[in-house]
């Protein structure tokens, strides 16, 4: 309902306010007079009337005349009972607005969670360790920017969709990761975030069936999530893929993801999320760590690197090569990163290099790399794991 209101009002804050008002009115009115024939249309009507009211009182009255005319027309055409099915689905427009590149990263995430995920600003604040007041302010500022800067509520078309969709997907993936591998926060809240990201990806996939990358992301999230129960021991130890109890991986999630991925790959428009999901699926399908199809994984990383030439992908590619081929071959690959500025402060580089060096039998260098990786570890669990490995050298 909120989406329908935003669509006709063009103002997220106003839509939220008038809907809130309509719900409050309904609580009193329905209590006294019973449920109306169509509660949804009743709420929409009250909300729209309130909006007209607000517009009339607004000092910007004259500028808004076209808006009022439109609303009054809507109001007049409102003769039959409107059912929920008839309310236009504006969720896709809304998600593109919330994830507009003209908003900063954190605001995109917060706004998406607040508007489409239905989390309260207190809940969102807790997820991101913000004070509730700070988060509320961030949301207000973001909504103000949308209104004042004239960010449209629309799905970008043609070439622009190709630019904007990755931003939406990145926001959803960030939300998921915040819930999946957060360095802090209670498990229950994190669980909620991951579920929310999966739900939003599913919704986006449903609304944008022609874009295979959305399903690629959805499959990737499901695959990560299938390992959720096994990736951490207690709240301290991060269990590497190698040592995870594969029988505790969620089969239904894996099966759903693999089926989804197969039908998506058939569209033959492969992108980075589909590739990452394919890699993750190969891990999921190996009964034991030893059965992992490293050759295919290395080949997929090769493809991924050609579209995303980032150190992250390079590091993972080297790890795959170390298993598919040899640790020495992997060293040649990972050492191509040595010249990149700032690589010294990139922790996964040192962690992966330490592992590869130790398997290549270069223990002194491995120890050195472990020391660096430990110094820079992002959380206690990871630090603990790396210390154990170093001490096993």
């Amino acid at each position, binding site marked *: 309902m909120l989406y329908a209101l935003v669509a006709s009002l063009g103002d997220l804050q106003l839509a939220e306010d008038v809907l809130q008002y309509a719900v409050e009115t309904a609580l009193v009115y329905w209590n006294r007079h019973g449920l109306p024939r169509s509660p949804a249309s009743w709420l929409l009507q009250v909300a729209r009337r309130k909006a007209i009211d607000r517009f009339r009182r607004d000092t910007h*009255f*004259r*500028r808004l005349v076209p808006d009022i005319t439109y609303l009054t027309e809507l109001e007049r055409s409102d003769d039959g009972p409107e059912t929920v099915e008839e309310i236009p689905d504006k969720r896709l427009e809304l998600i593109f607005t919330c994830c*507009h590149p*003209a908003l900063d990263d954190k605001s995109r995430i917060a706004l998406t969670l607040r508007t489409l995920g239905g989390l309260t600003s207190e809940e969102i604040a807790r997820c991101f360790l913000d004070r509730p007041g700070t988060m509320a302010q961030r949301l207000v500022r973001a909504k103000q920017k949308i209104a004042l*800067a*004239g*960010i*449209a509520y629309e799905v*970008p078309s043609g070439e622009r969709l190709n630019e904007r969709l990755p931003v939406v997907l990145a926001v959803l993936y960030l939300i998921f990761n915040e819930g999946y591998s957060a360095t802090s926060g209670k498990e229950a809240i994190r669980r909620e975030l991951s579920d929310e990201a999966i739900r939003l990806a599913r919704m986006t996939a449903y609304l944008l069936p022609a874009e295979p990358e959305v399903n690629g992301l959805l499959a990737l999230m499901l695959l990560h999530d299938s390992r959720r129960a096994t990736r951490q021991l207690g709240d301290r130890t991060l269990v590497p893929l190698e040592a995870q109890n594969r029988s505790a991986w969620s089969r239904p999630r894996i099966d759903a993801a693999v089926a989804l991925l197969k039908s998506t790959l058939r569209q033959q428009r492969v992108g980075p999320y589909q590739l990452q999901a394919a890699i993750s699926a190969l891990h999921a399908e190996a009964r034991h760590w030893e059965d992992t199809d490293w050759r295919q994984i290395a080949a997929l990383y090769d493809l991924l690197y050609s579209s995303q030439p980032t150190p992250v992908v390079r590091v993972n590619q080297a790890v795959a090569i170390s298993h598919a081929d040899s640790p020495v071959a992997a060293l040649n690959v990972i050492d191509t990163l040595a010249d990149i500025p700032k690589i010294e402060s990139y922790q996964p580089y040192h962690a992966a290099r330490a592992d590869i060096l130790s398997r290549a039998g270069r223990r002194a260098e491995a120890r050195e790399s472990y020391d660096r990786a430990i110094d820079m570890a992002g959380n206690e669990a990871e630090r603990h794991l790396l210390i154990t490995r170093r001490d096993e050298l």
Partner: protein
Amino acid sequence: MQYLCLIYHAEDVGPQPGGPDFPAFMQAYQTFTQEVVEKDMLVSGNALQPVATATTVSRETGKVEITDGPFAETKEQLGGYYLLECKDLDEALVYAAKIASAEHGRIEVRPVVVWDD
């Protein structure tokens, strides 16, 4: 809505007057201006003299103080602007990105306040 596209760049970066790439650069500006004129989007637009010609005044201390130089001593300086009439921010961003100086500088896009009298 109207959007002000503020063109910022370092004056010693990019094509310089008299340089081999300068005519093409000017041509790109002309093409852009023509496009926004034809589409009835141009409200106004101007190039500014180099920042060395800037003078800043203030009455913050109660009397008029005049200083040589721009308001902020940054590497990238305001070099010109376009005021465009656009449907929404997305359209404004598309056109801002077409401005020739976007290739070696940055365009800040600001919506203009509409006053009610």
